[in-house]
């Protein structure tokens, strides 16, 4: 149902991000969406890729720490109030958002927001009941 997001622990040193990205490139893995959390000593690279299983395997092979979590990707109207409309629904039922990031679809008229919440299933159910479109692995349009 939900989509899988990979997280990579990155030591904070020059070239580390490049090393990881090069591994993805060499293995023909395409990044669909990403966000980078930065701390003083380390960063966390979160990304959604076209082939999660392969990506995990190749990173592990290179001794890079990677883990995966389900996230909710939901379509929102690309207009003022579009995001608030969705967040409101989650807040009303008490779903706490750990973090989120957004991007615009290739077609340009819709935006996609990725939510990391504690209870992914519950969030998806609520959003669907409210008539929102949840993206699944197969139909990620970007």
């Amino acid at each position, binding site marked *: 149902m939900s989509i899988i*997001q990979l997280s990579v*622990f990155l030591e904070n040193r020059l070239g580390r991000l490049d090393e990881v990205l090069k591994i993805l490139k060499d293995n023909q893995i395409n990044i669909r969406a990403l966000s980078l959390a930065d701390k003083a000593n*380390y960063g966390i690279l*979160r990304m959604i890729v076209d082939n999660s299983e392969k990506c995990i395997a190749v990173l592990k092979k290179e*001794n890079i*720490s990677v*883990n995966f979590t389900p996230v909710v990707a939901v379509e929102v109207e690309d207009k003022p109030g579009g995001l608030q409309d969705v967040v409101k629904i989650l807040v009303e039922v008490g779903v706490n958002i*750990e973090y989120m990031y957004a991007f615009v679809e290739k077609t340009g008229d819709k935006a996609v927001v990725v939510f990391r919440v504690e209870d992914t299933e519950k969030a998806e159910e609520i959003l669907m009941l409210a008539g929102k479109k949840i993206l699944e692995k197969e139909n990620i349009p970007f």
Partner: protein
Amino acid sequence: MVKYEVEFLPASGLKNLQTDRLKNILRYIADKIPFYKQLFKERKIDVSKISSLNDLKYLPFTVKSDLRDHYPFSLFAVPLSEVVEIHASSGTTGKLTVVGYTKNDINLWSEVMARTLLCAGVIKGDIIHNAYGYGLFTGGLGFHYGALELGVPVVPVSSGGTKRQLMLIEDFKSTVLTCTPSYSLCMAEEARDMGMDPSKTTIRLGIFGAEPWTEGMREQIEKEWGMLALDVYGLSEIIGPGVAMECPAKNGLHIWADHFLPEVIDPATGEVLEEGKEGELVITTLTKEALPLIRYRTGDIVSITSEPCGFCGRTMPRISKIKGRIDDMLIIRGVNVFPSQIESVLMNIPEVAPHYQIILTREKHLDRMEILVEVVEEAFSDEVRKLEELERKVLYEIESTLGISVKVKLVEPKSIERSMGKAKRVIDQRQ
């Protein structure tokens, strides 16, 4: 199998034996080694007046630099023609420390190592996979001689080539693993990477030494390997491995005091401490021929008890597991810190690995200590908050144990260099 009755002597019997041997060795040393002859003359010590173990405290200490100063052979009590084997240990600074053995010394070493293996519970039918380094280091050959003496097959695999080691253990169905404790963990990690479960191997017993290790590390090794992990103690200056050994009760290491007479002293004043007090272990060799040493300061921090062991019944005194090394002791802003303290903290936090590295720097005349800690794969989270909590937890635990403020840096799993021999834990960049 054989039983060494001497290990079960009543206290008075052991004392008589030690006293006789002490008198003999003092006469021998004063006669054969110019360094000691000179030292006794300067200090106006007449060794023939030494008549009891209590008099030992009047004798001077021997320290590691005495061995280095007599590099390579001039502390030997016998001519080289009587020496059959030479070992050397690399100091972290300066020259090698060289030790020599006569044929009788090798027999002695074989005996104490056979006793060490017996004490650990090695029996006929066992196969010893000996991954201590063979070479100048005494670990490999020490265990080798013990196994020969006891009559138990030994696989002299030495250190390194971890994949091959694991294959040999599987194929030979070895039952006893001997190596440094950190290498046993390195092997377990490699085994898991290869898709092999170390706890499913035939290894049932491990005899680990050559570096200090904590109870937490013992628990981890025992769990990883599904084995009983016991501590062995020794140092090349005294003989190599085989000075003291734990029995399966894990209740202190039985020191073979019929050959190696122990004392525990206050490292600052040199005064002999009463039983149970922590201090520096000092050993006098009672029977060695090529390199007998008087009151040798080992640099290892222990406590000692002469209470007989309730488990195995041996009456030999027992020393505690090594608490640390005098020379490993770090002085951070005036506070004494042992790296082993940090290790025991990390052992109790499941989200981090027991691999760590300490980096010491000096900023504006103040010592700063940074500790790199590996997050275990399973604990790595996509949420910054969780990693921050973990970092705070590690920091809090370390600071409350050490009593000084430090910096903690979480690093990627397996990013701290693994060592085949003794682990390099401290990088001191203070000028």
